[in-house]
């Protein structure tokens, strides 16, 4: 009898360890279509969530994505509220001082969205114009470089786009994928907004998953999983799903 009990206990213990596959908490600001955004079913969907889910499968961990406001997303990481930021975070030197990054998973440029009729085609055309972007993004850093003090920061890129459409801004700077989504495919704005031009970067800009400074273990898991997803061709499947095959 005692033997049977101990056998059952052992079985339970083994099952528990396998079921106890590591859970990694991801934070995404789901206001950045098509990279990560809220679906009508109130799910965070987009390129990054799909990629994270594929990585979880390949890497044998459970991914839990929580929607987090952008302003403060880095503070939350530092405070240990989640393990990873998967929110189109560009890898920059300044950010590397405060956190560690996975291998790049996407390359972006900064796109400039303008109203259809304004004829803004170069950075020089933006002189003296009202330029806006989401607070704390590389798009806002570009806006500050171009417009200086008068660059306007918004909590969400969608609010900046709304102000652009309303005529309170002349240009909004954001990741090219997001810029294209608003200017070309968004049913609300595609008719009135256009993609003015791309800012030519000094060095290529990559997106990475951000983890707490010194969190080598999570970084290793992420990098291995990312590599597996890229090698298996699943990365390309997800890429084509969101950005077409061109």
């Amino acid at each position, binding site marked *: 009898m005692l033997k049977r009990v101990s056998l059952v206990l052992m079985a339970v213990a083994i099952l528990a360890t396998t079921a106890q596959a590591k859970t990694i908490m991801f934070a995404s600001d789901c206001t950045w279509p098509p990279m990560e955004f809220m679906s009508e079913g109130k799910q965070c969907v987009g390129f990054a969530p799909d990629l994270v889910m594929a990585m979880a499968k390949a890497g044998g961990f459970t991914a839990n994505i929580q929607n987090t406001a952008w302003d*403060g997303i880095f503070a939350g990481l530092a405070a240990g509220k989640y393990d990873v930021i998967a929110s189109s975070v560009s890898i920059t030197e300044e950010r590397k001082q405060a956190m560690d990054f996975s291998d790049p998973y996407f390359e972006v440029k900064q796109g400039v969205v303008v109203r259809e009729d304004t004829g803004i085609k170069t950075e020089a055309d933006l002189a003296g114009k009202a330029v806006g972007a989401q607070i704390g993004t590389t798009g806002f850093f570009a806006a500050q470089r171009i417009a200086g003090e008068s660059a306007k920061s918004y909590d969400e890129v969608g609010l900046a786009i*709304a102000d652009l459409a309303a005529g309170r801004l002349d240009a909004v700077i954001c990741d090219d994928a997001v810029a294209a989504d608003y200017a070309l495919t968004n049913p609300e704005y595609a008719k009135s907004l256009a993609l003015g031009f791309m800012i030519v970067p000094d060095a290529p800009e990559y997106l990475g998953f951000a983890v707490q400074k010194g969190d080598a273990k999570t970084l290793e898991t992420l990098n291995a999983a990312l590599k597996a997803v890229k090698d298996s061709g699943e990365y390309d499947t997800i890429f084509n799903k969101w950005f077409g095959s061109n």
Partner: protein
Amino acid sequence: MAEKRQAKIDVTDGAAIPSAKDRGLLSAWWVSIIGALTAIALLSLSDNPAYFASLKFLFPDGIIVTFKVTVFSILLALLLGLVTGLGRISHNRAVNLVASTYVEVIRGIPLLVQLFYIYFALGHVFRNLPRMDEALEMFQHWPDFAAYGMAHICDFLKNMPPLVAAVTAMGFCYGAYMGEVFRAGIESIDKGQTEAARSLGFDRRQTMFLVVLPQAWRTILPPVGNEFIALLKDSSLVSILAVADILRRGREYASVSFNYFEAYTMVALVYLIITLLLSKGVSAMENRLNYYDHHN
């Protein structure tokens, strides 16, 4: 039937005004102001340069914008408040209903939602208004001045700058509160004053503007000062409209440098010092206004 006894509590926003009689509060004021000023000075001079850097980021434009929003909003609120207060005690039923409904509706909607509504929801509607030249053509059958007026109104609404939108939203919200202040102030004046003025041959309007309002002003001013302080604090909400006030500047600094603790500590201290100074001013004003009450 036994008359129901009702306990009545006057709910005011008086927390911001230290009463002159309250020695405890007075010393609390000194502790707060000296503490805040010392904290700012020590932190700015400390080894951590992030404190001074974040403070520098707030000056001067962040503070100017905060004051601009507050001052213009309170002016609009005073105007709306006077009209609303008079409307609330009006014997004209339609006017009374309009004023009361305004107060009821505005009081029932959070300020943050009002800001979003006026800026983004109405902004979306205004976007589809005709341009200046289109408007002029649209109204060409109207008399010249009316057509010009309409065209300019359309143009203004279409291109409403963020600061104006913020001031409009804050002004409309606080106008409702101010209306209640005005109403209470006017009603606090003894009926005898009105009766005396009327029997001396003043008409209704003369009674209100020459007899009642000048006396009511003394009751109204302290709560108005109080609302001014409350409005200054609430003006931090406009930072969501990309209006570069103190809070917005602090957030911009923090989002780049990741020095959240330093930036928000400085933002909090700057707000604290401003409101402490203002509340001192308001309580000084209250003392002056109470002068005659004490010496009668």
